[in-house]
């Protein structure tokens, strides 16, 4: 019987040597004359165990990790092809606590299937949602998505179904579905993982969005920092087209839908939806004033659904299993599951999909296992560069849009960066201002100039020049940015800055600053 060996082609796994492992495995297979096939799967998201190699046995899958090229020969000696014991044995991957504790709805197949095999996709429940959608009236699809309680996973948390309804209700000769795959926030990689590990689920979600709104053309705008994701999406779109999932007739229905993959060009602000639309149109990625909403006048002035990758990739399961099934997960107004990305200085970094409602402390201490360096956790930044820094004192905050907002934070795209006690929060605050200055689109004065002033002011504070005055000035600047900026780049940069000052005053106190400067 032919053996199947899984070696991730996911960027994270590649960054830890998966390509060399794959080469070594190929060599062993050839040298030993084994009848085996290598599948380059996505990652299951346990990055401290990557590259994680799996083999399919009669008793199910058996995993090994973290594997390096030099371990490969000994793995074969130990009987890898039959799931033999080795010092890197992890056993059944589904039983690893980090996996077993998750609720994988959106990421159900990621790390399990061959990403560009449509047969594999269908064998694992793929296309069931789209098949249902093709026989439904657009308004009913929209209704189901609305009832599921799905909110935009790109950051703002706007109800997805309501956005779609506006597009459906706006008459036009051409409408678009735009997928926001700009994923610029530090600590986030969910979009990347799903595009590399299960691209068809995004394609399926976009096709459903097309059917729901009478849009016939879709774009996926992927940041240029993700060459592997771009390559996988390109391949998957071609496969989907050949199979009739995309094209003039979606699964034999009377509606057509096709997708084009576009690469960004290294501008963080192009993740902001109107800036992204300008970029797709071939313009400078400057933010547009709203109204008009993109749902009414979006890409090339046409009604446009613009959604994050994870929002769209969560639609197939909603269509397949029903609104109630999805909605039953979660808490309050945060329904369904959220792929939490645990990153930075953390022992068990990776992607953990779970219903909303875990506390920040459970995520960082229990799931993440504390810091990688073994030192105490000092701060965690939740929600990327525009998200607040939370101290341990706020670790009882449940992972929920409203609960985070109540504590002057945001969950954003659900990335968490863990810092140990060596972190200097003044430096982190300065970086937030610097990042805003580098990435500002330049339209608003508070964002463009305020951020540069912010850097200068924090530098003076660091040098202990009239510290009280600098602190007052930064606070004032943050207020101006918060209320005088058109978009959340200028408007939310105050979150990391003010949360650092508020929760870690000792790092901003003249004495501490003076000492640190010595």
């Amino acid at each position: 019987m032919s053996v199947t060996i899984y070696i991730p082609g996911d960027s994270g796994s590649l960054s830890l040597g998966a390509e060399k492992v794959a080469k070594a495995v190929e060599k062993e297979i050839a040298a030993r004359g084994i009848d085996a096939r290598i599948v380059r799967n996505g990652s299951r998201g346990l990055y401290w165990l990557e590259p994680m190699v799996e083999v399919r046995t009669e008793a199910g899958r058996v995993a090994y990790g973290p594997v390096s090229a030099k371990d490969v020969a000994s793995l074969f000696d130990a009987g890898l092809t039959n799931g033999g014991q080795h010092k890197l044995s992890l056993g059944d991957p589904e039983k690893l606590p980090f996996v077993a504790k998750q609720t994988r709805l959106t990421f159900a197949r990621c790390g399990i299937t061959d990403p560009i095999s449509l047969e594999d996709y269908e064998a694992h429940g793929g296309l069931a949602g789209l098949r249902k959608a093709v026989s439904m009236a657009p308004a009913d699809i929209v209704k189901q998505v609305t009832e599921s309680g799905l909110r935009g996973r790109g950051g703002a948390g706007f109800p997805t179904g309501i956005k779609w309804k506006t597009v459906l209700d706006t008459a036009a000769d051409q409408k678009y579905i735009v997928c926001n795959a700009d994923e610029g926030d530090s600590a986030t990689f969910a979009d990347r993982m799903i595009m590399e590990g299960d691209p068809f689920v995004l394609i399926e979600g976009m096709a459903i969005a097309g059917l729901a709104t009478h849009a016939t053309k879709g774009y996926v705008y992927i940041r240029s920092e993700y060459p592997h994701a771009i390559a996988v999406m390109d391949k998957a779109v071609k496969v989907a087209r050949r199979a009739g999932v995309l094209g003039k007739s979606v699964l034999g229905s009377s509606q057509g839908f096709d997708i084009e993959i576009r690469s960004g060009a290294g501008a963080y602000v192009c993740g902001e939806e109107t800036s992204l639309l300008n970029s797709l149109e071939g313009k400078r990625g400057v933010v547009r004033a709203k109204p008009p909403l993109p749902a009414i006048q979006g890409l090339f002035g046409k009604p446009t659904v613009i959604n994050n990758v994870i929002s769209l990739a969560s639609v197939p399961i909603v269509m397949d299993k029903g609104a109630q099934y999805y909605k039953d997960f979660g808490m309050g107004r945060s329904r369904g599951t959220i792929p939490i990305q645990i990153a930075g200085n953390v022992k068990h970094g990776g992607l953990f999909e779970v219903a909303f409602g875990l506390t920040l402390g459970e995520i960082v201490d229990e799931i993440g296992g504390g810091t990688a360096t073994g030192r105490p956790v000092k701060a965690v930044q939740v929600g990327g560069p525009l998200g607040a820094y939370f101290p341990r004192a706020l670790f009882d905050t449940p992972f929920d849009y409203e609960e985070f907002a109540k504590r002057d934070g945001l969950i954003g795209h659900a990335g968490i960066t863990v810092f140990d006690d060596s972190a200097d929060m003044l430096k982190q605050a300065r970086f937030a201002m610097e990042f805003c200055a580098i990435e500002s689109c330049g339209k608003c004065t508070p964002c463009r100039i305020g951020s540069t002033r912010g850097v200068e002011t924090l530098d003076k504070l660091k040098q202990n020049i009239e510290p009280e005055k600098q602190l007052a000035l930064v606070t004032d600047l943050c207020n101006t940015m918060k209320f005088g900026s058109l978009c959340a780049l200028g408007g939310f940069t105050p979150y990391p800055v003010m949360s650092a000052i508020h929760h870690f005053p000792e790092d901003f106190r003249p004495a501490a600053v003076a000492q640190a400067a010595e």
Partner: protein
Amino acid sequence: MVMQPASTELAERTAAVISELKNLEGPLIPILHGVQEEFGYVPQETLPIIAEALNLSRAEVHGVFTFYHDFRHHPAGRHVLKVCQAEACQSMGSDAIAAQIKQKLGIGFHETSKDGAVTLEPIYCLGLCACAPAAMLDGEVIGRLDADKIDEIAEEIRS
């Protein structure tokens, strides 16, 4: 700066890139990417050619070209090393890593070594935040950077 008239060869290669992408909706960014792939950077002289082909003003094309961090004004080194400087990598010491790399290569960010071997750039997140600190060498991803991996990178650059 004095505008050099485009050489025929440059004009032809630019026209070839344009004709392949011109029929896309919103073709300007794909064309700039294509030109950069063709020449390794976006030569000033290509901008008027692009403008004319797309029926845009030179100022518009120039404005777009300068907005995006990706588009190079000058040729890069034979290798391009991008080192992540965003928060998750910071939490794992990307500052110190960048300092070691700069010392090893003898250049700072946004600089190219004198022998033209390498250009060094900061980058803000590669989506490898659970494998920090991270970098990218010529499009290949590298996670958990440490002194050994920096040595390997330096070797690859020199070879």
